[in-house]
């Protein structure tokens, strides 16, 4: 099963959600890749353990 999902990634135009360094978004835009840049702040009030827990609940 897993191969088919990865295969489709390789066969479909890349569309990216960028989470972190803004320069990565800029480089993708310059290459004509569709990208949404997340206005990210550390979740869980900046507590990594809470952020980890929240990611499992979302």
């Amino acid at each position: 099963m897993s191969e088919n999902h990865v295969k489709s990634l390789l066969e479909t135009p890349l569309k990216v959600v960028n989470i972190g360094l803004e320069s990565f978004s800029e480089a993708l835009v310059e290459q004509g890749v569709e990208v949404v840049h997340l206005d990210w702040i550390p979740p869980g009030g900046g507590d990594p353990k809470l952020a980890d827990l929240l990611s499992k609940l979302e």
Partner: protein
Amino acid sequence: MSAAAANGAAAGTAIVINQLRKGFYLDSVALMRFSRSIAAMPGVEEAALMMGTPANRRIMADAGLLNQTGEAAGGGDLILAIRAKTRPSAEQALTQSQALLDQPAAPGVGATAWRPRTLRAAVKHLPEANLALISVPGDFAIAEARKAIRRGLHAMIFSDNVSLAAEAALKQEAQTLGRLVMGPDCGTAIINGAPLAFANNVPRGAVGIIGASGTGIQEVSCLIGQYGGGISHAIGVGGRDLANEIGGVSTLMALDALASDAATAHLVLISKPPPAAVMARVLERVAGMGKPVTVCFIGAGIMPMPVNATQVFSLKDAARTALGLRQNGDTTPLKAPSDIRAPAERIAGQNTVRGLFSGGTLCAEAQAIFIAADARVASNAPIPGAGQIPATPPGHQLLDLGDDSYTRGRPHPMIDPMVRDQPIIDALSDGAVAVILLDLVIGFGAHHDPAGHLAATVMTHRQQDGPVVIASVTGTEADPQIRSVQIAKLEAAGIHVAPTNADAAAWSLLAAGPTVAA
């Protein structure tokens, strides 16, 4: 955005000031740029603007930058930390830090006005999104990747500082969901012609690359382009994917995907030598691919290969083999140009090579070239057969300056070439060094003019009868920095530029003279 109380304390004779900005996030590249400009102010000994994650707080404590205000920071707080000779200097630096943080951000190139705050909103805005590119602090990277794969996206994790156990758990879940996780610590990928993070603008073609190494992928993909071929996809898997604890989950998924990918006719697999059990699993999968595969386990000895696979020992030979330019047993001719100073002209005792690399795999490839030439070599990141620094006595030394021990809390030398200045200056005046060997990696994500910076450093600090400098440039003519322009700048500074990293390593050995008996 509100400033919490500043707190100053004397550390020895120096003054340490910390201030927090609660819930204020800036990316690490922007913060490192600010930190450097504050640290350069008069009277300032050290400065860091960092998010208050546990890992960052440890780095700041080790640097003598943290007091009780900073220690109380959470991962969502920005810490402004300054150590200065006097209180007025510290306070002036703090004021300047605040001004830098308060300046309006320049709008990104082509950036959309609206920016979602959550992945859920981002996917709603771009429903066909198929990949999350994650470069947040390592403490939060797995949580973001988990959200991404559960929403049906594949993930590329550029962040490092992620535990092996967390990587294993994430990749197992991703495998169950049929999603690919590239990374953590994945610096390079090219998917469907789109370069991600640190990658080069290479032509499209029939060669697919799977690599546990960013600069390894960059060198091979650029050489394939230079030799007339092109890349279908280059999939990074992260430096630990082939560790026993991970078991090569992403490598195996990538092999399966490229096996059935119509655009890929030939595969190149690049990694450090994996442990035996993982290697067996990977080679078994390679054997069933039905496509030719070039296997480059840098630093490995000769090993049995499936009939459809060819083992090579350098990145250069990986590129040549993938394009059918090299037959088994054909060794690359390596000739140094005649204008490199001959060993006889060197002054006594000047007989070692000092390699100062920004790319880990380029450093490993150079070590492999040295070992194949029976030259004794040591490194901070040794491959099998090389000595470990500092335990090994002085001789040829090939250093990976992008290694974690050099980059903790500092930018990577590919982003900021200044990181390499001091080691280069030291080597230029070291009486035992005959040759300084360097790599220069350009492309997306890299510094805008590393050659200009390197040339100025070498010209300013070179000494009469000092070492010769040999370099290679990993990149393409289509990269923003333009490879030929970078080469011309190096050559104008008297730096010898070899066509590949492997050639540069071989040239440096020839120029250094007889093998060093360390």
